[in-house]
């Protein structure tokens, strides 16, 4: 069966900007870890890591240009991950 697929090409400039963003976010993660913000340290680290993951997915993994099926599939996996983590808190939170 013949499969047709649109190919997406990125300019070097875009890829370079993504790389810069990832490096900058890594720098921020390291820097923030030296400041004592109490419980917010973890939240900040998680938010930065999620942002980095999102950038990698959108640009390096081409999710920005994919059809609805793949986007929904991906969001489905995130949804289930959310459930697995949050449902565990029914236990931990009320123990």
């Amino acid at each position, binding site marked *: *069966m013949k*499969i047709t697929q649109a190919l997406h090409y990125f300019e070097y400039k875009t890829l370079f900007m993504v790389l810069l963003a990832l490096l900058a976010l890594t720098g921020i993660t390291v820097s923030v870890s030296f400041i004592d913000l109490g419980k917010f340290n973890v939240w900040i680290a998680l938010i930065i890591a999620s942002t980095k993951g999102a950038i990698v997915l959108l640009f390096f993994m081409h999710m920005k240009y994919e059809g609805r*099926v793949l986007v929904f*599939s991906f969001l*489905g*996996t995130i949804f*289930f991950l959310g*459930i*697995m983590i949050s*449902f*565990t808190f*029914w*236990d*931990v*939170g*009320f*123990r």
Partner: protein
Amino acid sequence: METVKSFFETPSPARFKGIWSWLLTTDHKRIGLMYLFSILFWFLLAVLLGGVIRLELMFQGETFISAEVYNSLFTLHGVIMIFLFIIPALPAVFGNFFLPMQIGTDDVFFPKLNLLSWYLYMAGGIIAIISLFSDGFPDTGWTFYVPFSISTHTNVSTAVFAAFVLGIASMLTGLNFITTIHRMRKKQMGWMQIPLFTWSLYATSWVQLLATPVVSITLLLVIIERYVGVGLFDPSRGGDPILYQHLFWMYSHPAVYIMILPGMGVISEIIPVFSRKSIFGYKAIVASSMAIAIAGSLVWAHHMYTSGMSDTAIFVFSLLTFVVAIPSAIKVFSWVATLYKGSIQMTPPLFLALCFIYLFSVGGLTGLVLGAAGTDIYVHDTHFVVAHFHFTMFGGTGFAFFAALHYWWPKMFGRMYDFKKAYIGAILLTGGFMFHYVPMFILGLQGMPRRYFDYLPQYAKGNFFAGFGAAFMIIGIFLMVINLLITLRKPMDAKADPWGGTTLEWQTPSPPPLHNFVTEPCVLDYPYDFTGVVKKYSKNTKGE
């Protein structure tokens, strides 16, 4: 059609001959058959191990194996049956062989990845064997619960690594199937024209893809704990032993749906064909497959009511567990409604499918006893759980596997088998099954714990009787398998459509050619429309 060469005579890639035409093949049918024979090997081995366990339990005290060997044997039986038989059995064998055919295409989307999955499966099995001969097979049970799995001196790390490798094989198969169904269906085949077996594989594949990474990481954590001792599950170092159970069951409960969903798909194929009647509630069955996949992923902690989990979590997970019963019941009612006023033709696949409905229903209903927190606390970790699990997994998936084997055997090998021997085997299996597992329900309710090497005198009678059931069951299984295998010595005699099926795999010769179809298959507006089949059969009976 008779002159077309089958896939047995046309290797793919064509340059390989002999054993290499199998070991390096990218043909989904050959890969499916390689899975079939490797899975059959593991299954029969684990059946015999189960027989040894049951023989030991027939009499009180040590009969012929020691307590340590007993612990390793039930672990080995569980690990082989779960990771090497039930999880891959239906998707890897029949999914590989029939999914592309049912959607009218010539192969899966990633044929080389498909072969890699088989090698990973074999590697996982070999690693499990290696662990047998290096410091002994684990005595933890197939659940590898901490803290015991971290502290025991047996070779947990190697066995756990075997399960990790098998998990990768399972994930890759799931990924391959999802992509194949999305990208390679015949253009005329809309989502509501996909056969129900393929639909069930689609639902299963998503669970494989989403849940397997959780257990893979968890098993690696066990290895890390054993070698490095980070303290992830150790309360004295800020860890949580119940966390392991959460992580383990996040996969392993959805995994029972990985095991049962394809079995339900098989039954949904067999029932309408031998009732000569369109399946009742096609859309409801499709929706219930997806609902089982989703709801089944939300109930993992019902295995943990007695582990020290919070009462709130027990309440929530108990409630959710009852929700899963609804889509399962929709399927059972739909199958029974399909049989109602159908023109039923009894054959070995239908017989096994009917046994499936009964045994699975008992397994499902006893599951509610375990899903309700109040009753579960009473029967938790007793033989009641063992009986329930075997009713759903063996009475369910195991019977579906044999039903599928008898249903599609003529298509896969082009040879019809002896019905009489198949019936005798199936009856021995079913009768033995009842004699084996019903006493376990009673023993469990009386309070006999599972996984115990010895028991109190009041449990002697039940264990003694269960042993006879096991013997009948084993004889039945071997009879059915031998009856099928001996057909390989006779010439190919099966018709393209020996049963009167309507899905696309019956529109091609038995066994199929390399690219599956000789002419473009015709997709029906409704996949279970038996109008043409009924006309054909009534013509034959009128002698036209």
